[in-house]
């Protein structure tokens, strides 16, 4: 135990001197939170919209007025459909309305009239959103819909809790591998192994300070986003701490695994970036729902600790849930799995 404390102390002194690690540990997370908090939004407002009207009646004028008065559209008038099509091509507008000659006439004859809506489909996600917005605008007889847990459907409330998971993964894996492999590269590991301290104590002592940093960051980011971004927090802090600790197990194990195989800091850095950061962002359900990925891809996403922790964090933040038996088991299983591989790799190295 005293040995462990000594190593932790040694590592903390190292850390204090290592400016770049400190920047990664404390500046980067806040920077990312601010960036993501402001930049990631799928909430549509003021869609640039083209309008061509061949029907100059008051009826169309009224519709156009309510279009531009709404929060959703910013209308630009065009003389011909050709011109509007060109603007769509150039990306100046995202959708366009064409009111035909017989628009108001058709209303008095048939009781309704049709407006043609052209949408730039290149961004499929955006196009669908625009389509729904238009639909909602014209067809008012909608059912009563109530949204639970994020009643205003803010992107932020969804993204920021997820970001905590991504940042923890990043800090846990990158900082740990940096420290262990860096020591290896400089040849200090032999020196450490000649000391009476056993090797797993050394590794543990090197991991704990970085785990602590990741853990502290959970609260810094939560507090920051609670105050600045007004993210709801329905659950309990105790719960968040408990599950964060649980999540550190597979994350740090993953870091240990990478460092037991990588020989230089450079490869360790690249590997941890490519094998943890990218998949954690893309495959974990951070933004894109896992349920919707192809069946062969889903097992891969379950190997990523972030996938499970994301469910937990969102549950705590938005729903106030405190019991996650399934996810906890997955985290423990993954942690054990990665530790076993790490030990295997380390043993091979010694031989």
């Amino acid at each position, binding site marked *: 135990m005293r040995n462990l404390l000594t190593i932790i102390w040694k590592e903390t002194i190292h850390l204090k001197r290592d400016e*770049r690690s400190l920047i990664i540990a404390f500046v980067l997370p806040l920077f*990312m939170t601010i*960036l993501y908090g*402001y930049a*990631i*939004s*799928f*909430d*549509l407002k003021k869609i*640039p919209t083209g309008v061509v009207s061949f029907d100059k009646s008051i009826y169309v004028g009224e*519709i156009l007025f309510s279009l531009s008065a709404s929060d959703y559209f910013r209308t630009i008038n065009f003389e011909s459909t050709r011109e509007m099509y060109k603007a769509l*091509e*150039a990306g100046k507008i995202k959708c366009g309305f064409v009111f035909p000659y017989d628009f108001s006439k058709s209303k008095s004859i048939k009781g*309704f*009239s*049709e*407006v*043609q*809506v*052209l949408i730039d*489909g*290149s*961004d*499929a*996600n*955006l196009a*669908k959103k625009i389509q*729904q917005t*238009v*639909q909602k605008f*014209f067809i008012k*007889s*909608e*059912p*009563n*819909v109530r*949204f*639970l*847990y*994020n009643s205003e*459907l*803010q992107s932020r*409330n*969804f993204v920021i809790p997820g970001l905590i998971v991504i940042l923890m993964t990043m800090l846990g894996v990158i900082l740990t591998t940096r420290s262990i492999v860096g020591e290896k590269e400089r040849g200090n590991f032999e020196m450490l192994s000649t000391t009476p301290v056993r090797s797993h104590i050394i590794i543990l002592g090197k991991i704990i300070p970085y785990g602590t940093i990741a853990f502290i960051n959970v609260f810094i980011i939560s507090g920051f986003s609670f105050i600045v971004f007004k993210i709801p927090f329905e659950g309990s802090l105790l719960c968040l701490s408990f599950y964060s600790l649980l999540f550190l197990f597979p994350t740090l194990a993953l870091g240990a695994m990478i460092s037991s195989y990588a020989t230089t800091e*450079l490869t360790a*850095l*690249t590997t941890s970036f490519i094998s943890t950061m990218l*998949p954690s962002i893309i*495959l974990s359900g951070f*933004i*894109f*729902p896992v*349920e*919707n990925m*192809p069946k062969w*891809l889903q097992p891969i996403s379950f190997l990523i600790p972030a996938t499970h922790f994301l469910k937990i964090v*969102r549950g705590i933040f*938005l*729903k106030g*849930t405190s019991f996650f038996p399934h996810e906890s088991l997955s985290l423990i299983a993954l942690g054990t799995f990665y530790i076993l591989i790490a030990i295997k790799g380390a043993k091979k190295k010694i031989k």
Partner: protein
Amino acid sequence: MLKKEFCQIKRDRRLFPLIIFAPVIQLFLFGYAVSLDINEIPIAIMKEKHDSYSEEILLSLMSSNYFIIRENVHSIDEIEKAILHGRAKAGLILGEKGINILIDGSDNNTAALIEGYFEKILFENRNPSIDTPEVIPVFRMLFNPELKTVNFMVPGVTGLVLLIITMVLASGILVKEREVGTIEHIFVTPLTSSEVILGKLLPFMIIGFFDLFLVVAAGIFIFNTPFKGNFGFLIFTTFPFILTTLSLGIFISITSKTQQQAVMTAFMVMLPNLILSGFMFPIENMPLLLQKLTSILPVKYYIIILRSIFLKGVGLKILWRETVILFCFGFTFLFLSILAFKKKLS
């Protein structure tokens, strides 16, 4: 100089997986995983009213690909519980007084999509004599009529792959020479600094173009992405982009002390590119200040060009602004890196 660089690249075995596999893997990841669509949404149903209208709605719910009825419940509490535990993403209440819908809002994107699907089904089953609205929008999707996310992602990934590969490669080069100690050899050659930098750039330029062909070919043949534009124009606009990223990489490598510091800096530069370039998150939705900030990212313009070439088939006539900007970026950064190198020499 050129010859020496090619030999070095050939000998560095580690580069091959980076050049060949990394782009393809990224293409697969982004092509398949990045979609906000959702099908087979699990829902809970509470039915109080037993008439033919409710039956019809249930029938079209079940026959649509959008929903799966996970459970039939008898109270709103049960629906809320099912949503809380994640067994259902939404609940439909066919009540005496009308239709009510509860949706799990925690993922706001999914929630909005679910709402849209419900509305679509209810609209299709409306009573035409009473409920017909005055204006019915008739939609036509341009440029990507099937609304396939892959078609949007492939051009974006192409830009991103080029950015990552060229920058990581370029940021590593000079520093490596310094670490190995061969940089003094270069200093004492009679080559001018522009010649050194260009000699370093060209081989990587070729690698960049190789990756461009690789990703575009994979996009067209594996993902069936349409390619409506002119390939010559693509090459014409790719040149200034690669020039920019390589010069930027070299600039980083000149100003860094160790290889890992260089790679680290390169990653730091890439991170905002991933978020702010419009690659995943629409720029139009960002606050105005951030929108302005995105104009300093070269990759933003390149992705706009790529998407327009792939999906819209437009050329220089519409994209001249983006093209000019890219050329400006390219030569500015090239100039800067040569300048930095000269300063280092003296």
